[in-house]
């Protein structure tokens, strides 16, 4: 690893860091909306990875996968936010710690 020139590894590293930030966000925050945003960060980290690989291998497959990831993210956001709204209606809270219906 050197600082210059910029190789795909740099991008992979950036992606790893972004991913970790997302993970920390998911771990730490209790507001479910922010949780979702952290997940979006993780998606982005993955996308950076894919695009970096696409640049590395000079082939658009990586970008194609990134497109799919974006589509999945959109679907996830739509359904997830729908669930949030439905949940909020019933419980008047967005605190993930109060959403423990799956408790054993």
């Amino acid at each position: 690893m050197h600082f210059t020139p910029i190789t795909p590894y740099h991008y992979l590293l950036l992606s790893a860091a972004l991913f970790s930030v997302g993970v920390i966000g998911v771990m730490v925050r209790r507001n479910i909306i922010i949780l979702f945003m952290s997940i979006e960060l993780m998606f982005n980290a993955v996308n950076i990875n894919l695009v970096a690989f696409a640049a590395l291998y000079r082939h658009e497959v990586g970008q194609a996968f990134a497109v799919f990831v974006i589509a999945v993210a959109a679907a996830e956001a739509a359904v997830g936010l729908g669930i949030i709204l439905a949940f909020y209606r019933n419980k008047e809270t967005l605190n993930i710690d109060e959403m423990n219906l799956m408790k054993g």
Partner: protein
Amino acid sequence: MLDAIAFYTLAALILAFAIAVITARNPVHSVVFLVINFLAVAIVYIVLGAEFLAMIQVLVYAGGIVVLYLFVVMLVNLKRGPEAHQDPRRQTGAGVGLAVAVLAELTAILAYTGRNPLPAVVPAASARGPGGNTEQLGWLLYTTYLIPFEVASMLLLVAMIGAIVLARKVD
């Protein structure tokens, strides 16, 4: 040199705003940081030669999905702060620790692998001339990945219907 400057600036921006997203107290602020973060990521895509993806990133992510977040944040006017109650069983510290560990390990792996010198990033677009990679991407999506593409569109449709059903007023 220029690309190094660009990369480090962008990386700093992305990470800074990502951290801002997860630390902001007000969810609306989080959303705003998230938008800026996404714009920065879009620029990364451009640098990597994926203009189409960059535009999609802005259009779909920043312009579409995050607006949804903003909407929900504004619709849900909270009577008590969501961060009011913390379940004691949740090991926040362990989570952060593990995340950092993952990062460290990934860095280690990359550093280890990165010792083999790789060619610098040459954006795919410049390799392919002025037509850009949009056309290639289109070909790829509509030939090799046609079925995944259609599946994705079905997924979006289902998600749309699902979201409407979920968010509908029950009466």
